[in-house]
């Protein structure tokens, strides 16, 4: 890999050779970020990381960015930030050191010090990443048991906070697409309408009848809603309550009746025929 990287930087493409360009593109993109690139440049020239010739490195670094631009590779902001840092360090190194006063600490810290520290730190994690890679390879070769009965009878997964958020986002998305589907939906049947009312009644003590009519998407559905109410009243499964003259009408489930949503097919047909 080192070989490839060297090629990529040393042999700048002289001519606009498309095939070659693509080749470079692949090799160039190996760098993960500015620190990775810097480490590469340091290793390539066998530079002592504690004494980086900053002018030389800056020049190489900028050359690389230039190359990226030539090849139409968008240079990530992080690379540009590092370029600015390098130039800043370079300029600081050109300034004469401030005279040291008697008894005071030397304020002239090496301008490169912070960068070196970051490089050393980054390097450790880069090496640690390869350790993680190896460990994962070993573990991937072990398998846990296949599904057994208890899994399906207790189908529970352990969840994290992120799962909560992920699931919540999915629900919101699903709700959005459900609204779209509604428009194309086939006409509702009497059975469905009865089931819908029953379900609402199971969750609430009473429903505002007007609210139910507002749910209807078509004239046909309005009629069905009306018929469904009549049906339920006739079967004494619900009572209609009006608290004041001309007030809202509420449907209430009768205490004793467990509303059976089952409507058999013949009845369903009849209703449709009646229309």
């Amino acid at each position: 890999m080192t070989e490839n990287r060297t090629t990529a930087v040393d042999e700048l493409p002289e001519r606009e050779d498309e095939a070659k360009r693509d080749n470079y593109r692949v090799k160039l993109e190996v760098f993960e970020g500015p620190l990775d690139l810097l480490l590469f440049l340091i290793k390539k020239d066998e530079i002592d990381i504690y004494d980086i010739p900053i002018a030389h490195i800056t020049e190489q670094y900028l050359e690389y960015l230039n190359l990226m631009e030539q090849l139409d590779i968008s240079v990530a902001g992080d690379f540009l930030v590092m370029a600015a840092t390098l130039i800043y360090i370079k300029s600081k190194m050109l300034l004469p050191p401030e005279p040291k006063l008697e008894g005071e600490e030397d304020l002239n810290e090496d301008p490169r010090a912070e960068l070196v520290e970051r490089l050393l730190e980054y390097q450790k994690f880069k090496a640690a990443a390869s350790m993680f890679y190896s460990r994962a390879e070993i573990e991937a070769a072990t398998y846990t048991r296949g599904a057994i009965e208890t899994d399906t009878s207790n189908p529970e997964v352990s969840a994290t906070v992120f799962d909560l958020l992920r699931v919540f986002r999915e629900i919101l998305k699903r709700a959005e697409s459900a609204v779209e589907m509604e428009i194309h939906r086939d006409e509702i049947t009497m059975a469905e309408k009865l089931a819908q009312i029953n379900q609402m009644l199971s969750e609430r003590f009473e429903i505002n009848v007007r609210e139910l009519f507002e749910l209807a998407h078509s004239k046909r559905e309005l009629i069905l809603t009306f018929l469904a109410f009549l049906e339920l009243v006739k079967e004494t499964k619900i009572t209609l309550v009006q608290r004041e003259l001309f007030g809202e009408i509420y449907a209430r489930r009768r205490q004793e009746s467990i509303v059976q949503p089952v409507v058999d097919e013949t009845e369903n047909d009849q209703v449709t025929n009646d229309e």
Partner: protein
Amino acid sequence: MNDDEIKDQIEPGVADESATEVEVEWVDFDSSDDDQPEGLSAEEEEELASDPEIVVTATRAELQPVIEALLFVAEEPLPFKQICKVLGDVPEDDVRAAMDELVAGYEERESGLEIREIAGGWRISTRPQHHEFIRKYLKSRPSARLSLPALETLAVIAYKQPITVPEILEIRGVTSSSAIKTLLEKRLIVTRGRKETVGRPMMYGTSKEFLIQFGLKDLSELPSIEDFEDLAQ
């Protein structure tokens, strides 16, 4: 056996974690992009489809352990013929003998597991006499284990609390009553008084147990959608 030894068995040479190895290993990565797809490319998929079967044959010593491992990972009773096929170019009689020995071994050492022929195949399962302990274990699992409907309901309650049952129905699009019951039983949610609206329905919110199970100090630590918007780029 330590990791390195295991590794040598899998892929000799990769065990060494020195810097040079790192460089070699990098060749394997297609790390051109931060968010490259982790799965297979269309090309690779195709390759997989035409991928000739892995050609391996078990040595005699491997027969028993490999059969054992196969029964362990199989989700359904494993027909004898299929076991033979996986083992490669091994006489059926040898496979049968290894199989018999394996089964006898489980009996002899009075293992908590047994290997039985069932529904035209072989299967490992727990022995029936330990079922009480297994039931006890299944009941004792931590409460953050949830079924999908329960997880969905909990998510809605966590992010929209306090919230009533009809409101949850509105968001989820499906009835959530049994999920709510489960969550109450697991003490992940609690009632939060009644909503001053028609029917005064109960409102629900998450409990202290919820915070403990999900490792949160308080509700403000719940990640918000905004927290992950940057990540979604």
